[in-house]
């Protein structure tokens, strides 16, 4: 009998469809994938050691570089953990501004993440470029308010760097007029396309219990059927004042993750609408003047604040020894933990599916390697 020979392929660090510098050592028997070993660390920048050398405020711009798609959300999470450590109160309007920025960032992240996944599936970036157009508009708004498109460095301890003015609000309203139209186009493009279904249904299935045991969070967890969303489970900022639904999948395959992310974009749109309605008047002091930012010396103690980033639960753990910079600074990156589930999820599927499963987990190497 002819013995078939297994092929070891190196889907290497520089490969068109690994999102960033990430390598997969794949053992393939014919087309089916027998074993997959993820190798990462190529983008390690010593982020946590930097956090201990820099003062609390100096570390804020470095958090932009973690998940470079959502610098607003990273800043928000870091600011929350320092505020929890130092017991700083955040004025109402600042919390609303932070929520608005988070939800805008969630829309742009899901738009591009789905675009990249469909690109891996072979849909030649049409969905991606529509997503990038919306992302450009949102980045212009971030640039208007924070000064930079991707490296916003916008949150401060006890508030935000600059207040939003009427121009920003009218422009965001205009953006939001176009969004539903974009959602319908995006959903109509491929959701029911037969080939997309063939490529996405029952691929990379992660059952509910296994998702919990892999401690996967975010859309991947919700797609497996676990309705866990930090904005609802442990409401922070002013999330407890908005009504929004938690989209949940049933099977937990690539198709469910695709649908959950589209539904989440619509929910983010709903939150934005309500946030703009309830936005308190200016003058509430967006930056808390009482807190001296750069010479902040929080009392000795530790704090862990977590935020629902589009990729999962993003947490910052800080231990302060009373001095100007942190004694221990740890980032709980959702992409890193979701990535550990990749190896087992891809087993048994075809080589082409491994790419799609990687795309459906939506990882950013900046966050994985820190």
């Amino acid at each position: 009998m002819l013995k078939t020979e297994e092929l070891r392929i190196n889907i290497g660090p520089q490969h068109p469809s690994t999102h960033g510098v990430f390598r997969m050592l794949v053992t393939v028997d014919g087309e089916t994938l027998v074993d997959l070993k993820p190798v990462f660390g190529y983008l390690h920048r010593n982020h946590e050691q930097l956090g201990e050398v820099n003062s609390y405020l100096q570390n804020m711009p470095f958090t932009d570089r973690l998940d470079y798609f959502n610098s607003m959300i990273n800043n928000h999470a870091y600011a929350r953990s320092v505020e929890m450590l130092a017991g700083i109160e955040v004025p109402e309007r600042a919390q609303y501004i932070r929520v608005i920025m988070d939800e805008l960032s969630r829309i742009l992240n899901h738009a591009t993440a789905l675009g990249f996944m469909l690109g891996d599936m072979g849909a030649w970036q049409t969905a991606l470029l529509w997503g990038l157009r919306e992302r450009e508009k949102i980045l212009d708004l971030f640039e208007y308010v924070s000064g930079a498109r991707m490296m916003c460095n916008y949150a401060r301890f006890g508030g935000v760097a600059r207040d939003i003015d009427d121009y920003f609000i009218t422009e965001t309203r205009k953006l939001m007029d176009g969004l539903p139209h974009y959602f319908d186009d995006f959903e109509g493009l491929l959701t029911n396309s037969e080939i997309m279904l063939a490529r996405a249904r029952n691929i990379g299935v992660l059952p509910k219990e296994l998702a919990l045991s892999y401690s996967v969070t975010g859309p991947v967890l919700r797609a497996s059927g676990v309705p866990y969303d930090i904005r609802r489970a442990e409401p922070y900022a002013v999330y407890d004042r908005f009504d929004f639904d938690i989209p949940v999948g049933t099977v937990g395959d690539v198709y469910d993750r695709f649908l959950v992310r589209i539904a989440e974009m619509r929910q983010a749109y709903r939150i934005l609408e309500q946030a703009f309605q309830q936005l308190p008047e200016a003058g509430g002091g967006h930056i808390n003047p009482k807190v001296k930012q750069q010479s902040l010396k929080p009392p000795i103690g530790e704090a862990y604040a977590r935020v629902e980033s589009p990729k999962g639960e993003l947490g910052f753990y800080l231990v302060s020894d009373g001095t100007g910079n942190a004694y221990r600074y740890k980032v709980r990156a959702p992409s890193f933990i979701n990535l550990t589930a990749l190896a087992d999820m891809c087993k048994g599927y075809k080589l082409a599916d491994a790419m799609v499963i990687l795309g459906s987990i939506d990882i950013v190497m900046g966050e994985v390697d820190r």
Partner: protein
Amino acid sequence: MVETFQQTFGAPLWLAVVLASGLKVTLILVGGSLGMMFLTWYERRAIAYMQDRRGPNRVGPQGSLQPIAEAIKTMTKEDTTPLEADRVVHFLAPVVMLAATVLTFAIIPWGNLFPSDLSVGVLFFVAIGGLHTLGMLMAGWGSNNKFALLGGMRGVAQMVSYEIPQVMAVIPIVLMTGTMSMQRIVESQSGFGGLGWNVFTPVGFFAFALFFVASLAEGERTPFDIPEADSEIVAGYMTEYTGMKFAVFYLANYMTNLAICFITASIFLGGGNGPGVNELGGFLGGFLSLIYFFIKALFLFFIMVLIRATVPRLRVDQLMGFAWKFLLPLVLVNILSSALWVAIIRWDQQAQIFTQWFGAPGTADAPNFVRLGVAVAVTIMINLGALVMVMGLNNRASQARMHTTDEELALGL
């Protein structure tokens, strides 16, 4: 062409034949490569507009010199060959692919002008198209690279399994027109004032759809561009090629697409035939037929680009399943219905009951509408019935595959 050479230059027969065929070959090569260049520009612009951006508009007016810039760029790039690669095979692969593609232009009519009229035109196109696969296998094997080998194997498997539906999809047209030579197929579509295209008959339309889908796979267009699926295996069999050899692959790829558009336009959309072509006649008529022909070909290519911008790629095993379990049965049923179509329309003494029921078969310009109506009804019923049945079967099969029972899992089926 040969006679003109003989009279004008008084050349002996053999010199005239050599000159005539030489002129034709150069015309085809120039036309083909210019067509290829235009196609790359056309595709970039069309897909750009579909994605709300502009596409190349810097080099030359509206980016028209972009393909030339690319050609120069690829020529100046260093042409490397991998170390332990099989140098001869590595070098020959693009040659074989381009040769196969250019040969198919021998029988493609440009409007009403025919390079050479083989009595087996259509079969020749598909046969020579088969050699294209050979080049892919040589490229995959010659570059001594895992990705290339995988890409080559996949490409060949796809090509071989799509060649069969492609050939069989044309059989109904051959049946209806009674010949395989391209010239007569094109001429047979000039009825009804230039609009008697094959695509307007139900059998013809069905054959057009199947042929077009199968040739999408032959030309490696999405959703069948598995061989150079960049997301999985870097660039498939073209991974180890740079510089001029890569340009030759690229040229071969786009010329195949051009050939497919031309062939489909000629066989199904009555290449060159259109309202007012035979009234004008002579040079003007030929020119108008050329314009019609190009419009049809470009329309077909636009559909290819539209599909490429929308639809994701099929996985290899799904692709094979699609060819064998979906296209092939439909093609066979279409052959059956085309046979019925010819029987109902043309048979006279062979089947007396037809003439009793529907009357004598009409001639080309005075068709017997009763027979035509019955033929249309019968063929549509058969084709659509087959389509629905095959789709139902495939849906049920994929549903079943999704819920493999645990016992089967345990046995490791």
